């Protein structure tokens, strides 16, 4: 069928089952927006900044497991989106991002709103395309979706010059993809799997090290079954929160810079790391030479480049986790859960020695209490997004996650301003769940304009602003490592967050006590409109435990012992 390049974009989205597109129009992408206006195959959500469009698409993708889609214009529209692309690339989030470009005849002339978009997006996308002929568009769009969601997922950027969106060509989306150079491994090597299972059977202190790849692979059910049948304790990375339920006896906790004492000690004492879809990030390992020093390493990952990148893998297995873990379950009879009983006991002792907790020793609310409280009140009924900073770490530590895709946060890139737009995308993907964004008084201002998006589209995200009048995480480092020289982290000068929410047509609360917080949350859930709940919290609370950057995992700064909580 003959149609314009712009129509092809619409038809391809519909053929891919796209239901929601996030974006912002502009000159070079107007032909495509004109077709969006005419169609009713999907909804378009207008964010108020292109960065927010990408984060919303990320949130949508993480909550739904589908490819997130965003559309932006050339020049500044595109450059605004770069942070989002980089964020999605670091956290392996499948996105297709379509940008407008100046017409072909103007490329290279420094035309109005021209920038070398694919030159900029190259290092922060899985792949990208500049479309020079509308006849290529059906194949390119189909490849883009395929590449985004297969293998190690990631963002794919398609840059389309304005004249190509107007060009008429044949559209046939049934074209077979011929990607001779892209063939992701799916099945793990059976011999390696057998060797790994033997290693588990022979280990005395094995430890599961669960990563975000489990969620990408939709393998949480298989992993839960595997962990339980093995009777082997498990630690989760930040990205893997919710793979095991918070109340799972075998879940030791989150490891890493702000991991629990028990999780970090378990990793330091183990004799066999069973890494599933995790990438040994520096925030996880601390000092590499001391990381799991006496352990062999099994590493299952779909990305060969992640294996033996930082920590040498004795049992490397390249493959899709769901596949590999299913294969491993076939040999489960090799493993006797009783063998690990004393190991489980010693981990319980770690947990009893320094449990993950906090002290209620301030006149002000403790931020950790707020997060725990939301967990008590909403639990499984909420999806939790966060911004970046102390509140993010406390969310990962204290919220009772019970399922994968419940926790949506910017892990690898650490993008302040991620949370609110992501929570909008999460709500669009999962309207039946309450969408909470835990944020700070620093982060929320980085995409605060999304109040308008949420009001216009009636997307009732509840932003819980843990307000300590500081850029808290940087302040924490200044306290600990810079002799309390608080360079540019004091945020005492602030907007009135209640009025700010109201100015956009949302609802605002300022709370200082537990009773006020409960009432505000209840009211916000009932009113079902976008809300700011500003919680005045203790100013100088630190995230503990903490492994100083570059330190060994077992050398943690710990919460001082007190008779409170």
């Amino acid at each position, binding site marked *: 069928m003959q149609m314009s390049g712009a129509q092809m974009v619409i038809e391809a989205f519909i053929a891919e089952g796209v239901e929601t597109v996030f974006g912002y129009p502009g000159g070079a992408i107007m032909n495509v927006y004109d077709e969006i206006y005419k169609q009713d195959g999907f909804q378009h959500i207008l964010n108020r900044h292109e960065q927010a469009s990408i984060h919303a698409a990320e949130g949508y993708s993480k909550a739904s497991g589908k490819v997130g889609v965003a559309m932006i214009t050339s020049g500044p529209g595109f450059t605004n989106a770069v942070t989002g692309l980089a964020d999605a690339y670091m956290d392996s989030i499948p996105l297709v991002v379509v940008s407008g470009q100046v017409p072909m005849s103007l490329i290279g002339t420094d035309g109005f709103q021209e920038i070398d978009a*694919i*030159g900029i997006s*190259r*290092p922060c996308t*899985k*792949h990208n395309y*500049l479309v*020079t002929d509308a006849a290529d568009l059906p194949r390119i769009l189909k490849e883009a979706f395929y*590449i985004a969601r297969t293998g190690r997922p990631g963002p794919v950027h398609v840059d389309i010059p304005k004249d190509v969106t107007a060009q008429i060509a044949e559209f046939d989306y049934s074209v077979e993809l011929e*990607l*001779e*150079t*892209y063939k992701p491994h799916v099945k793990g090597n059976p011999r390696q799997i057998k060797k790994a299972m033997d290693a588990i059977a022979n280990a005395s202190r094995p430890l599961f090290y669960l990563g975000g790849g489990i969620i990408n692979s939709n393998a949480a059910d298989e992993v839960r079954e595997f962990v339980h049948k093995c009777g082997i304790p498990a630690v989760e990375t930040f990205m893997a929160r919710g793979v095991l339920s918070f109340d799972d006896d075998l879940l030791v906790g989150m490891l890493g810079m702000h991991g629990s004492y028990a999780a970090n000690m378990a990793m330091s004492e183990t004799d066999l790391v069973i890494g599933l879809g995790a990438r040994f990030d520096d925030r996880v390992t601390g000092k590499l030479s001391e990381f799991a020093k006496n352990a062999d390493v099994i590493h299952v990952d779909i*990305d*060969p*480049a992640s294996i*033996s*990148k930082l920590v040498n893998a004795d049992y490397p297995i390249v493959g899709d986790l769901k596949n590999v873990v299913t294969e491993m379950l076939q040999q489960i009879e090799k493993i006797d859960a009783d063998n690990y009983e004393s190991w489980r006991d010693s981990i319980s002792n770690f947990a009893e020695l320094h449990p993950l907790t906090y002290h209620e020793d301030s006149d002000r609310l403790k931020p950790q209490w707020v997060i725990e409280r939301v967990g008590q009140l909403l639990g499984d009924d909420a999806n939790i997004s966060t911004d970046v900073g102390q509140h993010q770490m406390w969310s990962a530590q204290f919220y009772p996650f019970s399922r994968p895709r419940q926790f949506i946060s910017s892990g690898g890139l650490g993008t302040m301003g991620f949370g609110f737009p992501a929570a909008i995308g999460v709500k669009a993907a999962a309207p039946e769940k309450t969408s909470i964004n835990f944020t700070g008084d620093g982060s929320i201002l980085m995409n605060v304009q999304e109040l308008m998006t949420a009001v216009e589209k009636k997307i009732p995200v509840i932003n819980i602003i843990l307000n300590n009048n500081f850029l808290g995480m940087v302040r924490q480092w200044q306290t600990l490592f810079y002799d309390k020289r608080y360079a540019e982290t004091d945020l005492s000068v602030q907007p009135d967050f209640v009025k700010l929410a109201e100015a956009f047509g949302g609802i605002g609360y300022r709370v200082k006590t537990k009773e006020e917080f409960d009432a505000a949350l209840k009211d916000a859930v009932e009113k079902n409109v976008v809300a700011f709940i500003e919680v005045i919290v203790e100013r100088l609370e630190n995230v503990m435990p903490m492994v100083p950057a570059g330190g060994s995992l077992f050398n943690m700064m710990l919460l001082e012992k007190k008779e409170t909580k």
Partner: protein
Amino acid sequence: MIESNERRVVSVIVVNEASVLSRITNLFSGRGYNITSLTVAPIPDSKYSRLTIVTAGSVRVIEQITKQLHKLIPVLRVYEHEDIVEKEMALVKFPITENLSDINTLCEAYNGKIVNVGDTVIIAMVADEPRRVENFLSAIKRYNPKEIVRSGAVALER
């Protein structure tokens, strides 16, 4: 065991399409890998091109380089060579007043010859293993070379 930062030759077969070269060089610069030389040309009768990259790094770095190259979508194959035939070409411009028979003899020793004679300069060409090209270039220093250009290495597995 290979010493750290040993010289290695990596060949990469890529789809011959726009911006593929910058994907490769971006990867090297973005991840802090080193490129000593890089040659690229289309493979006859195919849609592919072959790059020969001379790089240096520890075993782990070289392994990462090959894996990261493989991750690029247009990359078909990556060879990290062990046993190879490797050649490089150099062109050198000399003043015509230098001793031409000496230069010619040296060129012949390094698998080359004088390829162009002008009014004021001659151009000599050699094609040999990169290490030997290096030797040639140091041997001809006394003949006042005016310009030197090296092609970078190309390699084939034996």
